């Protein structure tokens, strides 16, 4: 294989891309502290990425919890352990479903918005105009959006898990007749601080991954309608795959 074709081979291209994303992360981290000095920008991005994702996260959390309640009750009653429904739902939500499903939804809702917004700013010369006004777009545009996503993700995952547990309670206790006392006391007894911190760590890592991919793709989008569309698609695909891959790695680390 010639040197040129080796450089263009898929693994080499993938490696270059990972390297480029890592360097981009370093550039963002260098701008995070200055970006924090403009709290109004961060608050706005928290609102865009977090508050605007609330409805979809809350609804999804509720329904996922209700399904967990139904399926969990069906499975546990075969062994006569339906009282453990609360524990099963709480641990599934806190450790897995909360962070993972929130991350997937976050990529679809906030990630795509970030990519297309930054991509369109590139296509309409807004980023170049900022550079011409001696304002670094990494500081003014990218860093606040990245930070907003990273902060919003764990909060959204917590809300997802909370609503999910409420959904499981609704189905298990109100509908199927599981004892409310056992539901909550067993949950309280079995869920450890480590379980909660595992969920928080995962959602934080997913927040970094999804936000990084979203801003990277937007910033490097080809400045055309097709280019921005492709970048948005890449954000969803890459974020979803990376979320599931990282989930496996993190779960293996926590066990």
């Amino acid at each position, binding site marked *: 294989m010639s040197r040129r074709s080796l450089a263009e081979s898929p693994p080499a291209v993938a490696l270059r891309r990972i390297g480029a994303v890592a360097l981009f992360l370093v550039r963002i981290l260098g701008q995070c502290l200055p970006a924090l000095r403009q709290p109004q920008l961060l608050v706005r991005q928290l609102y865009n990425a977090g508050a605007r994702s609330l409805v979809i996260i809350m609804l999804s959390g509720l329904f996922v919890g209700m399904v967990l309640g139904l399926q969990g009750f069906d499975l546990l009653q075969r062994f006569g352990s339906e009282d453990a429904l609360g524990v099963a739902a709480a641990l599934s939500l806190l450790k897995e479903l909360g962070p993972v499903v929130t991350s997937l939804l976050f990529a679809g809702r906030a990630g795509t918005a970030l990519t297309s917004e930054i991509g369109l700013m590139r296509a*309409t010369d807004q980023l170049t105009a900022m550079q011409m*006004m001696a304002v670094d777009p990494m500081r003014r545009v990218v860093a606040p959006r990245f930070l907003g996503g990273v902060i919003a993700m764990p909060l959204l995952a917590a809300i997802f898990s909370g609503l999910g547990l409420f959904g499981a309670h609704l189905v298990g206790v109100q509908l199927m007749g599981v004892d409310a006392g056992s539901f909550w006391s067993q949950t309280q007894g079995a869920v450890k601080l480590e379980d909660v911190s595992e969920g928080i760590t995962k959602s934080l890592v997913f927040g970094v991954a999804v936000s990084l991919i979203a801003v990277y793709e937007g910033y490097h989008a080809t400045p055309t309608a097709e280019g921005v569309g492709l970048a948005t698609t890449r954000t969803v695909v890459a974020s979803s795959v990376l979320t599931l891959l990282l989930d496996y790695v993190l779960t293996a680390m926590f066990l």
Partner: protein
Amino acid sequence: MSAASDTVVDVRDVHYGVAGRSIFSGLDLTVRRGRITAIMGPSGTGKTTLLRLITGQIQAGRGEVRVWGENFSTLGLREIYRLRRRMGMLFQNGALLTDLSVFENVAFPVRAHSDLPESLLRRLVLMKLQAVGLRGAASLMPTELSGGMARRVALARAIVMDPELLIYDEPFVGLDPISLGVILRLIRQMNETLGITSIVVSHDVKELSAIAHDSYLLSQGGVVASGSPMELVQSGSEIVRQFMSGAADGPVPFHYPAADYREQLLAEGGR
């Protein structure tokens, strides 16, 4: 004033190419202080690329671009930003920040580079908007503006930091005659009243000839003619005459290089 201190932009023997295609091969050009310099040329001759070189957005492969005597290729990002604070640029599409109102767009560079009290900032922004005739549009969003209005707001934003050098990228494209006249008058006003050095990139010969002091015609990777607009109109060069008179064919061919027309039409299949 000596010629050196009179020079704002000095482009010397610049070579630049993209993806194996040469855009400039030995470009030389000078922009002098307090004058309006027109950069003209057919589409695809690298006019916008030249602006990107002058503003340090890209670096020349060979040769040097000096602005106020400083060579861009030797400067770091911080120094480039320091130089850009002395420039203003008007983009072809205005490039207004779509999430900010007209007022905030004009205030943007001031907020970014100074701690001016809000009352002073408000007065400054309103003065600049008044200069472009859009004080009444301060609260509108960019999506509510027409193309001509957006460009005037962008002009107000470009002059809000009182730049020494103003760069206009295709300022007349897509404007109705009234808006075009307004922009033309504003460019001249900025130059006459504030003494701002201006570079106007365009292929609107008639409009540019009315305001420019110096002009350069770019083609085939370099400057093919320079001088006052009148000198260009009276030039004996065929390529200059073709461009100035707007003839469809000439040294700059109408047709993109292609296979023989007859052969291609008669060939079966393929393109």
